[in-house]
């Protein structure tokens, strides 16, 4: 069953077209990530769902009910803000039970509900503290508990982890996902971090300039990016792109300056069409100069201990990710091997997958 449906949603800020004909259906109980660079409209889409932004055209429905004209408080969705938006003049308990109080729930009942939620999110000892007395991670938990206590139709997250340090972010990622599974909730999660989107979501929606570029399961997006933008955005470090031209019989050759190399891919494009060959850094392996398919000089290497990033001194520059430590230094000549099955081909004009 579809819990949230956007149909033909448009949003203008004056002349600026922020959301362009958004169609998106979200299954009940699924975890959906909206991801894209800043200014792509992902937050606007989320805020439109919450009712904090009025959409210019189209319809939004939640649990079968069209909510387009309803104010935020009648939509029964809970939101976790990037800034957490905790009420600074209220204790943790008052923060958690604010919505219950507004809805006229009795004091005893509120206290019980707060205690129950606090126990599951590890806030039991902090109920009488003020937000200013909490650490970043604790504030984050309060913000989530405030959403949980309401048992809403959907949880909306607006970049909730971006104010935390890296270690805590990885931890909270798992915690949010575990919480989602336990509650059986429907969650919409906005992030600019594709790793968060890939690791947490069942369904990833990649946006750019107010348009959904591609949506699907995380690994489908990784394996079959619909266009150059998605290919470059999903995966880290980003995919390498090499310009090439289609030859007789749909053959494609690439040339990094050491002679043309033919790829075993058949491209359904006219002869002479310009294309982009995409190969992920993790699909390139270093070999001895004669053994690989391509030959390149090493520009520089960066090692994190477990992985080594090697950049080549070619045009365009290629990035290679190797696990383990490699004894290559800048200036060394190396061979690059890859499997033709891992090669992506995009039209250079339309940037669509071929």
């Amino acid at each position: 069953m579809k819990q949230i449906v956007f149909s033909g949603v448009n949003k203008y800020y004056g002349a600026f077209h922020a959301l362009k004909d958004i169609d998106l259906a979200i299954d009940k109980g699924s975890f959906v990530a909206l991801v894209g660079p800043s200014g792509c409209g992902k937050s606007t889409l989320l805020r439109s769902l919450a009712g904090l932004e009025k959409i210019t055209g189209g319809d939004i429905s939640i649990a079968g009910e069209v909510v387009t004209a309803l104010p935020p408080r009648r939509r029964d969705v809970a939101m976790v803000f990037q800034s957490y938006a905790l009420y600074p003049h209220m204790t943790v308990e008052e923060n958690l039970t604010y919505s219950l109080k507004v809805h006229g729930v009795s004091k005893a009942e509120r206290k019980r509900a707060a205690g129950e939620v606090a126990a599951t999110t590890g806030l039991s000892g902090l109920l009488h503290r003020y937000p200013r007395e909490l650490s970043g991670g604790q504030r984050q938990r309060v913000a989530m508990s405030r959403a949980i206590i309401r048992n809403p139709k959907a949880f909306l997250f607006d970049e909730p982890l971006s104010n935390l340090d890296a270690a805590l972010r990885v931890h909270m990622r798992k915690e949010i996902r575990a919480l989602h599974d336990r509650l059986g909730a429907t969650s919409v999660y906005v992030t600019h971090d594709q790793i968060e989107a890939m690791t947490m979501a069942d369904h990833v929606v990649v946006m750019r300039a107010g348009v959904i570029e591609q949506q699907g399961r995380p690994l489908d997006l990784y394996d079959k990016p619909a266009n150059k933008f998605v290919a470059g955005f999903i995966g880290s470090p980003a995919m390498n792109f090499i310009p090439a031209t289609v030859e007789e019989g749909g053959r494609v050759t690439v040339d990094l300056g050491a002679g043309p190399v033919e790829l075993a891919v058949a491209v359904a494009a006219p002869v002479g069409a310009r294309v982009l060959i995409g190969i992920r850094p993790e699909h390139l392996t270093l070999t001895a100069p004669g053994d690989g398919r391509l030959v390149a000089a090493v520009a520089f290497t960066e090692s994190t201990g477990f992985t080594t990033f090697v950049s080549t001194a070619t045009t365009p520059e290629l990035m290679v990710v190797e696990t383990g430590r490699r004894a290559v230094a800048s200036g060394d000549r190396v061979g690059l091997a890859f499997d033709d099955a891992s090669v992506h081909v995009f039209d250079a004009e339309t940037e669509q997958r071929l």
Partner: protein
Amino acid sequence: MRRLYSSLVDGRGFDLCLIGVPLAFLIVLSGLPLVYNVVMSFQAVDMFSLGSFIRPWVGFQNYRELVAQPEFWPIMGHTATFLAASIAGQFLLGFALALFFWLDFPGASWLRGLFLVSWVMPGLVVGAVWNWLLSGDFGVFNFVLRELHVISGNVFWRSDPTFALWSVIIANIWLGTSFNMILLSVGLSSIPADLYEAAELDGAGALTRFWTITLPMMRSTIGALISLGLIFTLQQFDLFAAITSGGPNNASNVAQYWAWDLSFKQYDFAKGAAISVIMIAVVMLASVYYVRSTRHEVRG
């Protein structure tokens, strides 16, 4: 010697110098007159002993005589009415205007700036303008009230004992509203917008948001404003001088005007000083509250 020099150039000595200059200024121009005033309120002062600092010590004699005067309690009552009505009027109107301009319609900031004009004007000028507005026979104020059918005959605002104090209060509210509005506007704009969004999603309507978010978040601003208002209102002298001169028959006389009247019209400096000391005590309490409010700012 060398250490003293380096301390003066960059160190503790430099800090002390920075504090010392304004402190000396305050002591000479505010502290000493204040102490002089307090001392004088316990002495017998007449025209002949005005020039000397050593005068007969009379203890609380001046205060006792002051309280025994028949006009003392009425004047204290007027002062309390003036304070309460002025502060309430300025605050409520100021808050209403601040909320209005917070809606951020086109031109809101311009209009808000124009409102400050009233606060920039000298009290005596404001008094003169309100003299015309409140004038009994040709005043605009009466005209408006008559056209609105609030009154049937002319009200002689400044000479009718029932209304004299209120005529000054009305002028004072007009004078102080914009200052209240500006400070409250600043307080309103410092409340993060996402708190309202969170409250809205939590199910709170506009009124609930006002009572549970706006007012509590404005607590320190409001506390500071009320205590500042108390201090400014107790200082309000010009309007009395310009509009009613405390009359008729003390009907609009207040402590600050009475102190001036006693000291500089009746040359009873000791009693004038005694009233000032009473007012200093009130202002001190307000100042303590003001400092505490600004220290208790709640910010996420």
